[in-house]
């Protein structure tokens, strides 16, 4: 079953075969996890969002027409749910958010490597920049694919990418090698 293409597994799922759906989850977990963790951080909520992504996919599987690939479909759900989570955090502006950010900021004395500092700067990006940077720079989608996934014009993708990288560079300038 693990070798079967997505469309066959979808048909089997519609007929009630949960093992087929399990294979679909296993097959696309990596992409979804990459996107969600990059967007909301490697926090507990990431796995909850991941679960919700596949539950939504399961609920709409009968309507899935195959106009886009399963990967594109679930990544789009993942991006939307992650953006909702970021919005929720922002609107709460609660202790939860402050404590999460505090966890991410290294203590002055501790030595954090460049990657950790980059993660901190990345987490400071506004959601619209973060989503573009996640798909293009972290997950390696092309700019066209990024535009399709986010349903925004290519020009917007390019300008957001450019601004995101400028922000990251400003935040890290002292730590980057010349």
């Amino acid at each position, binding site marked *: 079953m693990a070798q079967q293409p997505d469309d066959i597994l979808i048909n089997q799922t519609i007929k009630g075969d949960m093992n087929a759906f*399990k294979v679909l989850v*296993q097959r696309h977990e990596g992409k979804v996890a990459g996107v969600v963790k990059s967007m909301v951080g490697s926090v507990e909520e990431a796995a909850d969002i991941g679960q919700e992504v596949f539950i939504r996919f399961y609920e709409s599987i009968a309507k899935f027409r195959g106009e886009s690939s399963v990967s594109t479909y679930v990544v789009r759900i993942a991006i939307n749910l992650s953006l909702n989570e970021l919005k929720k955090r922002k609107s709460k502006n609660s202790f939860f958010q402050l404590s999460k950010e505090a966890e991410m900021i290294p203590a002055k004395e501790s030595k954090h490597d460049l990657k950790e500092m980059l993660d901190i700067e990345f987490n400071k990006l506004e959601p619209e920049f973060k989503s573009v940077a996640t798909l293009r720079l*972290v997950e390696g989608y092309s700019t066209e694919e990024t535009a399709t996934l986010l349903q925004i014009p290519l020009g917007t993708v390019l300008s957001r990418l450019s601004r995101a*990288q400028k922000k990251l560079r400003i935040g890290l300038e002292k730590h980057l090698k010349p």
Partner: protein
Amino acid sequence: MENKNIEDLLLNSFDKKITLTEEEVLKQGLSNNSEAKKMNNHFLQIRELLANKEESTFGFFFAERVINKIKVLQDDVEYQLFSLVKRFRLLALGLIIALLSINIVLADGLSVKSILGLEDDTITELVQIDLYKEIIK
């Protein structure tokens, strides 16, 4: 050329095809301008560090957890009702609009009574019943 323009050109060159002229300008900028060289190195480092090279995961038995959650939800009556409403909401809305339209057409005009499909007599009866209840009290 200004550093800001070089920076934009540089960033563009990473993500889209730039023209031959732009390519030439960028090449010159990178060879003559130390600040541009530094910028190029910085962006390359950032992009290299961001690129996800490992397969991400939500932890052990993630697929099993998803399947279990779906099974739990399927057994939940409230969830089932919600799903049913969600699935048939367009149909229900269409039905309501159709019924209202039929009432309006049959009543030959737009009024609260025609929308609700009530005859004059029905309203009078309803009022009388309410009055009767008040008297009994």
